[in-house]
């Protein structure tokens, strides 16, 4: 291709066309803060871990009447989720550490996406747990109310359905919010990764 040869010739001649940056300017630059997506993913992920973990302390604990088995169940789940959170944080840290700007482009992209995936699984797991616990507690509530029989059964049932829908909507909003944050953050990366994978098919 004749034009490409022409371009190559011009390209290789173009070295002196750039305004040279002085050593002093380079000194200044290396002390500035990076705005790379890796940094943002790290910050947002840490916030997610912190928020999700502190949420469990804030949730009202004793509002509902619990039977013995439910109480044990919730306590076990509590301890279990600390373990799970620690496990996810360890995975996240391991993936984060493996991100290296000196590895090849494809591997770098995979490392970043993997780091991100860890946090996404953690959020997915949390949303599932919230939903699961809500269902258990609600059904337990219905059982108790029915047993004591001091209220209109149909009305309780209706209230529970409304609450369930409300929880579903809440979970949906949280999920959409995440899609939005990471959609913006990772749009370019995802596009370029898809392109790179396409070449190697």
């Amino acid at each position, binding site marked *: 291709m004749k034009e490409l040869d022409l371009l190559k010739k011009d390209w290789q001649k173009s070295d002196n066309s750039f305004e040279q940056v002085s050593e002093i300017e380079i000194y200044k630059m290396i002390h500035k803060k990076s705005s790379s997506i890796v940094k943002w993913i790290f910050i947002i992920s840490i916030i997610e871990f912190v928020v999700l973990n502190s949420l469990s302390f804030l949730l009202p604990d004793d509002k509902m009447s619990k039977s013995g088995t439910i109480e044990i169940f919730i306590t076990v789940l509590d301890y279990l989720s600390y373990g799970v959170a620690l496990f996810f944080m360890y995975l996240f840290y391991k993936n984060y550490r493996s991100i290296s700007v000196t*590895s090849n482009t494809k591997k770098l992209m995979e490392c970043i996406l993997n780091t991100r995936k860890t946090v996404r699984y953690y959020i997915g797991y949390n949303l599932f747990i919230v939903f699961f616990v809500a269902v258990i507690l609600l059904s337990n509530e219905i059982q108790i109310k029915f047993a004591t029989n001091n209220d209109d059964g149909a009305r309780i049932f209706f209230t529970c359905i409304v609450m369930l829908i409300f929880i579903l909507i809440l979970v949906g909003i949280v999920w959409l919010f995440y899609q939005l944050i990471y959609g913006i953050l990772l749009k370019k990366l995802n596009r370029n990764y898809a392109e790179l994978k396409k*070449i190697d098919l």
Partner: protein
Amino acid sequence: MSDNLEHSFVKQLQENQNIIHKICRLYTNGDDAHKDLFQEITIQLWKAFPKFRGDSKFSTWAYRVALNTAITLYRKTKRSINTIEFEGRQHFLNDVEYDYEEEEQLKLMYKAVYQLNDIEKALIFMYLEDKDYQEISETLGISEVNARVKMNRIKGKLKKILNPLGV
């Protein structure tokens, strides 16, 4: 990090800065975006520098980090039409024999290259820098054969942009 390391880095970067300028020229439009990407690449190079053992040339190492930053890590994408870039370049050709037709062709070629996507630009960049397919494949993490195939496709794409009707 020690002053020595800093000094050695700044010196080598200063000498090799055209690599970064060329990548910035390919991936950004306008002076502000150019400076912005230049700075981000410099920061990434500096952060990775302690691990640079010197078993490859500084420039080879810098190619990889700079491309990775432009394609993967850099986030600001200011979109505007790239017309400013080529205007300032006329003076190089002036001092050799001035060829109007060649000049026009070059302008069109630069414009066509700008229309490629990020990955295609990376391949073209390394091609223009006279890198062999082995280095291209190692830098991007694709096979050598596929790098060749893709390069041919890019040439075809450029031809099509230059001559959309195929006459």
